[in-house]
Structure formats: structure tokens, C-alpha cells
């Protein structure tokens, strides 16, 4: 995990969030709620379910296309974090060897099915969440949180963290690069150098915090951060939330894939 790439990542995500599409204009709360519905629906399935998960992909695809997000981008990010799911799920085929059904001559064990299920859930939940936040951006998110009753100190914390994320990661990158340039060949730093860098970074951070505080006081800061409100929940939001909720309910309780598959097989016969 290199610093540079991550900086570009957050910056890029934020650029995407300042785009303009019907989805961008929706109140963040509607989008967050719907995505949560998806995650809960997907995650509530039994461990051996795979095909029933397929129709849910409609949601992230919808977000990507209507939100104008670059499709390869989300897919790449999902692949990037996939190893973790693979790591924990990969034991399943070894531990669960009860054959569930046969594909032609080969028997497919429960372990493989549940492994596939894990991967599918993973792809769904991660892509939906990434798409959501590529469209929403942290500022709208924080406003949504504040208006939903999340404690103010936490929301303010998220805002400030986001504000200074670049500044600090930029500093860390610069110090790190300076060190790398002066360490002939040795790429990894030892504990002592790391401590020096982190220590200095910490001190500079504390100084900065003091300066920011001063700047805030000079402009009348009295302990309350007041957030400017934007649009509210209207008809488009209700339509969005209800529509997807209905779809998710259908997908959850009716195995659409099965229905389609049986129809096709029946048709072939």
C-alpha cells in the first residue's frame, strides 16, 4: 500500500463525487439507506446461496452507469481488496466436503458453493458501497449523518479528518520520499528511522492543530460547528428508496435466477 497511490485514490473518489448526475442530486440519506438495504438483504442469505445473489448486481451497475462512474474503476478496486475474502473463504472447500449436487459427472461440494457465495456477497457489498461513496462524497455524507441524529462531535471529527487527510498524507509522503532518496538502496526503513519520521510528523501535527485552533478562534469559533444545510428528502428520494426496496424484496424472497433458469431449461426441452 503505497502512499502516493492512496492519495490519488481519495482525491479521485472526491472528484467523482463532485460530478453531476440525477444520482448525485439525490439526498445522501436516500442513497445510504438503499445501499444498507442491499447489504442486509445480501448478507441475510443462507451460506449455500449463490445464484439468487445474481440479480442484486443490478444495483451497483445502476449506480455506476447512472452516476457516470468509470466502470473499470470500481471493478479494479473490488479486485484489489478481494484477497481478504478469498483468504477466509478458501478454507471452506477443504472443510465442507458434502456433495450438494452434480454438474454432469463432477460433484460440487458444499465447500465450493459456500466459497462462491462468500465471493459473490463480497463483490456485491463492496461494489455497492464503493459506488455509493464515489457518488456521495464525504461532505454530503457528513451532512446526512448529522441530519440523521449521529452525534455532532463524531460528524465534525469526520469532516476535519477528511479535510486534513491530504495535508498529512502529503507531508508523510514527502518525508518518506526524502528519506528514501537518502538511503542508498535500502528500501525498507528500520524501526528507529520510522520512529523519527512518525515522531516528527506527530509534532508537526500538534503544531498544526494549535494553528488551526487559533484561526478558528479568530473567526469567532465558540465550540459549535454549524453545518450549512442543502436540499431535503423529496419525491425523487422516496421513489428511489421505495423502488429499490421493492426490488430487493423480490430478489431476496424469489430466486429470480432459478425462475429464469427453469424457464430456459423448460423451453429448451
Amino acid at each position, binding site marked *: 500500500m503505497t502512499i502516493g497511490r492512496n492519495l490519488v485514490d481519495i482525491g479521485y473518489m472526491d472528484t467523482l463525487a463532485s460530478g453531476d448526475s440525477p444520482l448525485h442530486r439525490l439526498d445522501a440519506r436516500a442513497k445510504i439507506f438503499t445501499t444498507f438495504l442491499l447489504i442486509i438483504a445480501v448478507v441475510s442469505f443462507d451460506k449455500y446461496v449463490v445464484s439468487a445473489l445474481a440479480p442484486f448486481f443490478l444495483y451497483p*451497475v445502476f449506480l455506476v452507469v447512472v452516476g457516470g462512474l468509470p466502470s473499470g474503476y470500481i471493478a479494479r478496486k473490488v479486485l484489489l481488496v478481494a484477497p*481478504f475474502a478469498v483468504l477466509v*473463504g478458501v478454507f471452506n472447500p477443504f472443510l465442507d466436503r458434502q456433495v*450438494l449436487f452434480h454438474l454432469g459427472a463432477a460433484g460440487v461440494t458444499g465447500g465450493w458453493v459456500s466459497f462462491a457465495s462468500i465471493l459473490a456477497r463480497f463483490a456485491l*457489498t463492496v461494489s455497492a458501497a464503493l459506488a455509493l461513496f464515489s457518488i456521495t462524497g464525504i461532505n454530503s455524507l457528513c451532512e446526512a449523518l448529522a441530519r440523521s441524529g449521529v452525534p455532532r*462531535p463524531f460528524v465534525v471529527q469526520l469532516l476535519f479528518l477528511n479535510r486534513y*487527510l491530504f495535508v498529512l*498524507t502529503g507531508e508523510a509522503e514527502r518525508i518518506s520520499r526524502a528519506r528514501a532518496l537518502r538511503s542508498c538502496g535500502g528500501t525498507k526503513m528500520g524501526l528507529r528511522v520510522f*520512529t523519527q519520521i512518525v515522531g516528527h510528523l506527530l509534532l508537526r501535527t*500538534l503544531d498544526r492543530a494549535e494553528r488551526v485552533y487559533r484561526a478558528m478562534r479568530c473567526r469567532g469559533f465558540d465550540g459549535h460547528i454549524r453545518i450549512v444545510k442543502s436540499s431535503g428528502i423529496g419525491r425523487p428520494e422516496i421513489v428511489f428508496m421505495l423502488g429499490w426496496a421493492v426490488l430487493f424484496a423480490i430478489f431476496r424472497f424469489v430466486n429470480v435466477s432459478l425462475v429464469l433458469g427453469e424457464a430456459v431449461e423448460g423451453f429448451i426441452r
Partner: protein
Amino acid sequence: MHMADALISPAVGGTMWVISGGLIAFSAKKVREEADDRKIPLMGVLGAFIFAAQMLNFSIPGTGSSGHLGGGMILAILLGPWSAFLVMASVLAVQALFFADGGLLALGCNIFNLGFFTCFLAYPFIYKQIAGNSAGKKRILLGATLAGILGLQFGAFGVVLETVFSGISELPFRTFILMMQPIHLGIGVVEGLVTSSVVMFVMKVRPEILTAVVEKAPIGVSIKKTALSLAAAAVFTGAALSWFASADPDGLEWAMLRTSGKEKLESNGKVHGFLASLQEKTAFLPDYGFKKSIAEPGVAIKEGEQEGGAGPGAEATWPAVDPGTSTAGLVGGFITLLAVAVTGFALKRRKIAA
């Protein structure tokens, strides 16, 4: 250590969300009561600092692998437990939102595993007791290392419990534990070392920072203190008991060395029953391995024994599967995915045309 949504059941995820949410609300209340304006920019900037620091890797001497700073301890030392918890929660939230580092449903779990134990257990009960106000190098090193170990052991254990209770992964409890705990022991030691060296650095260069913070930090709660330690003890003993109970013969033999045979079998049944009823209450769809064990006490839970299929009297752990249904399901699944892709393209076309 960041958990993903794919491995969590809604029940576990939801419960942890409620717990973490409550902790956030409570910490926010405490921070507001402190009414220290200075903390507002400080917490934000320190959160960004933790982020940046976590991106720097260093090589762990002797192992050749690289490590990075967790940061919870440093936050707690600089800010006190409540603010530190909020900062950790915010860092984890941003990691989940923008880096997909940890799922959204699992965020509650992650905040608890990585925030609660460090800020409310390891810091006040270990670090502060050992290193607290005095500035001795040895005490800082000892306190930070022990606190790091404790915090990470509990955190790792939390991950194991949450994954196992969700029942999505087939990883058996014991294997998971044996995987997680030793690794995180090492990580805990490293965390402690790094924390103590950073603290000592700051002390050498700008000692007044630490003394100022230490004086301002609110003294710990008294009733809550006992409650917390009791809760921690309960978690730990519950886990230890279930480990004994679920163990295959080796572990049982070891337990036998300490207790008489009868006692062992009795506690076996009791804990089995307890865990099974717990599972029933928490599991969304209760067709997991635990249930099987009620019918056959002594059979290992979720071990490879499932290979042989369900034993006599045990319930089937999965719905009867008709081969025909499965292939139809697969075919249908592919067709659905295709349909989704086509819909996507169609929408895109419409967008460009519009």
C-alpha cells in the same frame, strides 16, 4: 484485521453496530462535557495523522516482514480514552468508506475490535496503571507493550467470535483462534514497541505536551471500571470455556489433566447447550453446525467430521438439495448476470443519447 461484510451475518453485524453506535454516542457525550474547544481541530488532525502514519511501513527486525502502526494507543495517550475512541472510529469509517478496507455492515465490528479494547481496556487498565504519570523509559516500554498485546489479543479474539457466530465461513473455531492469536501476539508486541518509542521521542523533544495532556485527561470512571473489567472477564472466560468444550480429543485430554472425567463431560453438555441456545437466538437462519451437537454431545462442532454426513439423530444442516434445482439455479444465475449487464449497457446508451 478489518472484517468484510461477506463474512458477517446481519445479526452479528447489527448487534455490533448497536454496541459501537452506543459507544460512539457515549464518547461524544463525554467529549462534549469536557468542553475543550482545542480538541476539535486536534482530534481531526490527529485522525489524519494516524491515517498517514498507517501508510508508512517499517521492517520488523528479525522477521523480514513489514509492519505498520495501529495508533489507538498513541491516540489514547494524547487525547484520553473518549476522544481517542471517536478518532479511531472516524479513521475506520473513512477506511471502510473510501478504501473498502472493511465492510459497512462490519464497521460496527471493526470499531469495536480495534477501538474499544485499545481505548477502554488496554489504555486505562494497563498503560495508565503502569506508565501513567511517571515518565520512566522502562515503564513506558512495559506499559505500552503489555497494553498493545492485550488490546490486539482481545481485538483478534473479537474477530474470531464475530466470524464464527456469523457462520458464513467454514473456518472452525479452534483453527481460527490458532491462526489469529499468535499472529496478533506478535503484532501487539510490535505495536507496543512502536508506541513506546514514539512516546519517548515526543518526551525527549517536547515533554510539555505529554504532561499537559496527562494533567487534563479525566480520571477514569469507577463504576464503569468494574463493569468493564467484569465484561472483559466474561468474554474471556466464555471463550475459554467454549474452546475447551468444542475441542476435539487433544484439547479434551488436556482439560482432563486438570479436572476429573465426570466434571469434564458435564460441563461439556452444559456449555454445548448454552452455546447452542445462544446460536439459535442470534443466528438468522439456524441451520449451523452448533445445532447438530445437541443431538450428539461430544461431537466436535464444525470440524471436518461433517464429511461423513449427518450422524444418526442429527438434523440435516442444509436443506435437501435436488440436483435439478441446482443446475437450473446455476443456469438462471448466469442468465440473470447477463441480463444485468445488458440493462447496464442499455442505460448507458440512453444516457449518451439523451
